[in-house]
């Protein structure tokens, strides 16, 4: 059932935007029903709750100990009734109040969504579930404060509230997780029962501080109070509902909820009393001289929240009683007064007490309601506020320590309440009518809220037995975790409390009379507020964004060379750290085995590297790089891999040709780096090279003989039907690698072609025309003739190399390269256009076909249930000439052949076209 009540509210929220199509008034009237029904439903539960907590659990993420558990005891019930009861009145009110505003669908969505979240918060019986709803209230508050999002002030206020409460929320999450860890469960019932374990745990203090951070930010305690006055940028129904009656009380709820677990220790008492007292005092100081009705209420709310925290900090049985009584007192009068402030604003267009006067005639009913609420706020008998104040005075006079000081503070706070209450009634409603007032009569729906809330204060004041037994006693028992009895009475006889009350009235009257004069005085102090937490927030934000900008400028500066440098330094640093930690690694350095030939190659490579670095022309550097490549090819030959060597030779050659085709288009070669930076780069380069050398030597020292080589040697002919191991590795043993690599090659080819074709300011048409002329001019008769005779032979050679690949050095890769080189020759001789005609298909089509062929050859084996790429072989008999093994790996190699042709030509042809 508890789950259902939440579902009801969230469903209403989801419907809200749609409902608003029928008009704000109708929609809001409809939306009052769910909270109204819930209020009724929960009122029927009072007796059950009085007998013990109602727990209802639905699994959510049980593996993490997170469940949708609901825990309804006296404390939750009190809050639920506040949320749904006041919610009903606020919805009724808001439909009229807001009816001319835009984007009401969203407004009512967020308002209803908030109500659901708040209900979830106070009903939650699992720490994480509680946190989820806790955050949802912050989020909906963000959207509601930012409702007038066209205004900078609203946006800033919304963000401020979100960040402050968000910071607390994160602390709360950490606190809850630790609490759950210590208590061994995230379920409320288990946590509430493990108070002793928690308080004796070394993590108690961190848990306490984290939870307090959550509670204090949400309930606007010093030094986090500043977001609350700014939040008044929200429409008044939101201020009334979220920022005085419900959401800001969530922190109070949290403290009350966990006081059986975390309370009763000096750290708890001290932090609550200090924070509460500071907040109380601050509310008083900041309220002085305010002229805006909503701001006056906001500061008095801060003051009241301070009182509540302070009372919970005193931590005696009576203090808890007083806190709960005052909570209810405050909700009734503050809700009423906020709604009145909205009405005044609505009817007159201002909230400035210096301008407002004489509204009493036009709004008689509202005036009475305001007077009742204000009297309750000021603590006059026979209103509920009087009972509340008397109970509080009783508590502070009996406080275990520092009673006089606490009493003084409380009296001061109450003096403020008296003054604000007087201001609120006397200024707008009395005096000579002199204001233009909206002539339309106030709709009953807007009057109902303040009247009912204010009347509530009177009725409860006169008949406190209505609630003390049923509502407050279970709540207090829940907070104290022991059965207790709340007994309220209007009259306790003449005692010290009563004298204090009288004193409060006198001082309050004085404060009222002096208000405007004090206001001028306060104006002089106001610069002092520039040193307050609101400014810390501003500085903090500015400092943070400044830091962010600075660190980003340092890290993400935009220079590629420095990025690379950082990466190489990091590589050497991390690896060096690991080597240092290991205390070095054994190296295999046997220069004795070095052959003369090897030494020559090594020197050749080294010398070329130096030339490449020192060269002051691109061409020189490229040729030197080519020589390095040839040197590596020589090493392949020396170690018996002629395939690799052949490939390397051809690749190096083609690369150099490519560079030369491109080089003429590059800007002039310039030396940009300073001597210092070159030295630095050299150091890093040497470190990097040194690292690689060390690692290679270390690998040689520990290296076992590769088992793979033996396997390949043994199986290559009998099972893979090839003699050239390198080729068999490429097309069979590790054909998947080759499939990937020809994809890379094909991508590179097709990619270059695509990049060259698709450019933003392409003048291709002209260029092509021009280049055609160039081509014709370039044609040389000798080259053309030579090519005509050479081409068939070269193509035959490429086919030959490809076909023999499986048995002797060669294969699709080399064959393809030779064929591509042949077509390039043709392009130089006859022009690219003619070459394209001979090829018939575009190079990228060759690439695609090659890939499809390779892919298809691998798929054959799937038919027979073997893994992808398993070779299938058929022997062709040629009588006396023997037999020829034909198999899918050969088709695979043909795919390689096609891709290599396509990719090479895709790159070379456009470049040769001279576009």
């Amino acid at each position, binding site marked *: 059932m508890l789950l259902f009540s939440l579902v009801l509210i969230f469903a209403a929220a989801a419907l809200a935007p749609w409902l608003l199509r029928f008009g704000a008034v109708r929609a809001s009237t409809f939306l009052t029903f769910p909270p109204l029904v819930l209020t009724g439903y929960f009122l029927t539960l009072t007796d059950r709750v009085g007998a013990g907590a109602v727990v209802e659990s639905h*699994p959510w993420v*049980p593996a993490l100990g997170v469940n949708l558990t609901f825990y309804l005891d006296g404390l939750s019930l009190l809050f639920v009734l506040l949320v749904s009861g006041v919610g009903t009145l606020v919805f009724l009110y808001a439909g009229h109040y807001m009816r001319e505003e835009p*984007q009401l669908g969203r407004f009512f969505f967020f308002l209803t969504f908030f109500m659901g979240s708040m209900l979830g918060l106070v009903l939650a019986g699992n720490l994480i579930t509680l946190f989820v709803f806790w*955050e949802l209230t912050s989020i909906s508050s963000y959207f509601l404060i930012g409702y007038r999002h066209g205004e900078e002030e609203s946006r800033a206020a919304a963000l401020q509230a979100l960040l402050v409460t968000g910071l607390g929320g994160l602390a709360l999450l950490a606190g809850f997780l630790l609490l759950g860890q210590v208590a061994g469960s995230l379920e409320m019932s288990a946590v509430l029962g493990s108070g002793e374990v928690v308080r004796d745990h070394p993590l108690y203090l961190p848990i306490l501080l984290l939870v307090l951070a959550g509670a204090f930010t949400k309930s606007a305690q010093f030094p986090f109070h500043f977001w609350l006055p700014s939040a008044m940028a929200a429409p008044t129904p939101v201020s009334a509902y979220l920022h005085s009656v419900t959401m800001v009380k969530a922190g109070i709820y949290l403290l009350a909820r966990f006081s059986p677990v975390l309370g009763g220790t000096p750290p708890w008492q001290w932090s609550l009393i200090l924070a509460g007292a500071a907040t109380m005092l601050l509310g008083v100081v900041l309220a002085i001289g305010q002229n805006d009705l909503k701001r006056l209420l906001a500061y008095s709310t801060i003051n009241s929240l301070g009182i509540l925290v302070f009372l919970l900090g005193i931590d005696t049985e009576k203090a808890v009683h007083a806190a709960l009584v005052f909570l209810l007192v405050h909700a009734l009068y503050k809700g009423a007064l906020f709604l009145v402030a909205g009405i005044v604003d609505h009817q007159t267009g201002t909230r400035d007490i210096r301008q407002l006067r004489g509204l009493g005639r036009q709004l008689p009913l509202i005036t009475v309601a305001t007077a009742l609420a204000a009297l309750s706020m000021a603590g006059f008998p026979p209103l509920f506020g009087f009972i509340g104040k008397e109970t509080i005075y009783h508590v502070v006079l009996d406080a275990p320590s520092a009673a006089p000081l606490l009493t003084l503070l409380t009296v001061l706070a109450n003096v403020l309440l008296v003054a604000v209450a007087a201001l609120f009634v006397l200024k707008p409603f009395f005096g000579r009518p002199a204001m233009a007032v909206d002539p339309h009569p106030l709709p009953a729906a807007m009057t109902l809220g303040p009247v009912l809330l204010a009347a509530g204060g009177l009725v409860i004041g006169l008949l406190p037995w209505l609630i003390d037994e049923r509502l407050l006693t279970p709540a207090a028992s829940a907070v104290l975790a022991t059965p207790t009895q709340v007994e309220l009475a209007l009259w306790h006889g003449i005692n010290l409390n009563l004298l204090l009350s009288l004193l409060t009235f006198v001082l309050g009257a004085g404060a009222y009379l002096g208000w405007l004069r004090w206001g001028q005085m306060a104006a002089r102090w106001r610069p002092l507020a520039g040193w307050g937490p609101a400014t810390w927030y501003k500085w903090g934000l500015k400092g943070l964004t400044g830091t962010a900008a600075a660190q980003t400028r340092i890290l993400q500066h935009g220079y590629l060379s420095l*990025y690379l440098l*950082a990466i190489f330094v990091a590589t050497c640093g991390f690896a060096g750290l690991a*080597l240092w930690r290991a205390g070095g690694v054994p190296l295999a350095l046997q220069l004795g085995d070095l052959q003369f030939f090897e030494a020559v190659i090594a020197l050749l490579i080294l010398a070329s590297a130096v030339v490449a670095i020192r060269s002051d022309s691109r061409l020189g550097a490229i040729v030197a790089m080519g020589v390095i490549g040839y040197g590596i090819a020589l090493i392949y030959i020396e170690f018996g891999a002629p395939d690799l060597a052949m490939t390397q030779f051809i690749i190096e050659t083609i690369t150099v040709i490519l560079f030369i085709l491109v080089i003429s288009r590059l800007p002039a070669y310039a030396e940009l780096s300073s001597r210092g930076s070159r030295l630095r780069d050299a150091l890093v380069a040497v470190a990097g090279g040194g690292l690689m050398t060390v690692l290679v030597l270390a690998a040689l020292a520990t*290296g076992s003989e590769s088992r793979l080589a033996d396997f390949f040697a043994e199986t290559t002919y009998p099972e893979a039907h090839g003699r050239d191991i390198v080729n068999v590795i490429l097309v069979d043993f590790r054909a998947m690698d080759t499939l990937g690599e020809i994809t890379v090659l094909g991508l590179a080819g097709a990619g270059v072609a695509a990049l060259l074709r*698709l450019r933003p300011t392409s003048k291709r048409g002209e260029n092509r025309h021009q280049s055609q002329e160039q081509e014709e001019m370039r044609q040389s008769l000798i080259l053309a003739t030579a090519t005509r005779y050479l081409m068939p032979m070269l193509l035959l050679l490429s086919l030959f190399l490809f076909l023999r690949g499986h048995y002797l050095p060669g294969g699709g890769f080399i064959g393809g390269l030779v064929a591509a080189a042949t077509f390039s020759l043709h392009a130089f001789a006859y022009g690219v256009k003619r070459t394209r005609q001979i090829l018939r298909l575009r190079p990228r089509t060759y690439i695609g076909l090659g890939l499809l062929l390779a892919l298809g050859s691998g798929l054959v*084996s799937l038919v027979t249930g073997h893994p992808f790429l398993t070779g299938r072989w058929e022997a062709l008999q040629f009588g006396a000439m023997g037999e020829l093994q034909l198999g899918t790996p050969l088709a695979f190699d043909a795919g390689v052949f096609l891709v290599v042709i396509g990719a090479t030509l895709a790159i070379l042809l456009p470049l040769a076209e001279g576009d």
Partner: protein
Amino acid sequence: MSVLLVLPILLPLLTGAATLVLRPSRLLQRTLGVAGAAALMVASLLLLAAVAKHGIIATELGNWPAPFGITLVADRFSAIMVVLAALMGLAVAIYSLGSMDAGREKEGYYPFYHFMLMGVCGVFLTGDLFNLYVWFEVMLIASFVLMALGGERRQLEGALKYVMINLVSSLIFLAAIGILYGAAGTLNMADLAQQLPLVDPGLVTTLAMLFLVSFGIKSAIFPLFFWLPASYHTPPVAVSAIFAGLLTKVGVYSLIRVFTLLFIQDVGFTHFLILLLSGLTMLTGVLGAMSHDEFRRILSFHIISQVGYMIMGLGLYTPLALAGSIFYIIHHIIVKTNLFLVSGVAHRLGGTYELAGLRDLYRLAPGLSILFVISAFSLAGVPPLSGFWAKLILLRAGLETGEYLIVAVALLVGLLTLFSMTKIWGKAFWQEPLQPQPMPHRTGGHRRPLYLLYLPMTALALLTVAIGLLAEPVFLFSMQAAEQLLDPAAYIETVLRGGR
């Protein structure tokens, strides 16, 4: 069953090759582009179902026994990654239909797109270290072309940094593979896991650093992330989106794979270093995001910061922590891709990615606002969206191991993430134009139906909400995946006995 392991590689290859061969007709390219992605989606789900049912599965390509041939292998972690790659592939392919310009569509956008997916799936499925390198290359070249295609100046600048830094990563990776092969004599990862204890531990840890740097570059961790913010805001938004969803996660996947399977000799050093880097990555990333005022740049820096969370779980190195990493990856891929997709629609409506130029989207595009809010809040870890659970698991793992500092950093970065998301919200969505303006007129090439954009965005947003509300199965799956990673015996055995 073994065919399920190759399909996620072969289907994109087939689509890519077919779109390359066929004539450059837009209709054909678009149809094949989406059909291929849909086929991949189906195949990946079948793979996931098979892995969930049968446990780890493997196949020996070419029928050559491990460790001599190449083995493809899928455990839960691989399978879910393939599913996510396919899902993003499909979502962004549909989005591309509505956003990619005709020139790029004709010149090979779809082939390169699918070849990139092929590389990504290859990384997730291979059980061979060199084969992993090959897939990295496929992914790198394909993504480079996608990034540069169109040849706008900004694009080329970004693409150059992207490809240069990533080539360095490949270089380091290749060198590390070579040396590792020299020392251990095998490339099969399961076999390596068995052979590495015989190799000098100092050498292994040093090589682990090379892998950390190489994969760290791919994952964009501190201090190796430079390529990402330099390039992600330059290509068309569909390209940014698929990159944002998948590319860094390929690096993270590889880090998690090698640092749970191979390099676990000196966890006190290697994994502590990873934890340290994760904190720095989170912080520097989010600070970078805070310092920018361009929609995609902000999102790009957030990727970095979020990668920090993903490797935080690896650094903590407990089952719960790794489950947190996996959960985080699942959540992040969906949400981040979607945020980029949202930025594309914002660009289409407002004509720019600069927050200073974007205004009033809250009024103009309520649907887009909802999608943004869901994704942005999910990214920031607001409950009960998917990001909340991802963070919750990591925080819990951190608190349980007593690593309070990293927990504090993770919490703080969550708040800063929220802050920079509200910056986008406040400026692009909430702020009203100085003068009321009519809807910006849609320029050429932007006449395509909006539902092609909203369909994938809505699906992804619903997914993040669903993961949030029904976190239990996702968490259980992540937990099982993490347990598989931390107990590699089953993986090794499955691979070495050839998946039989």
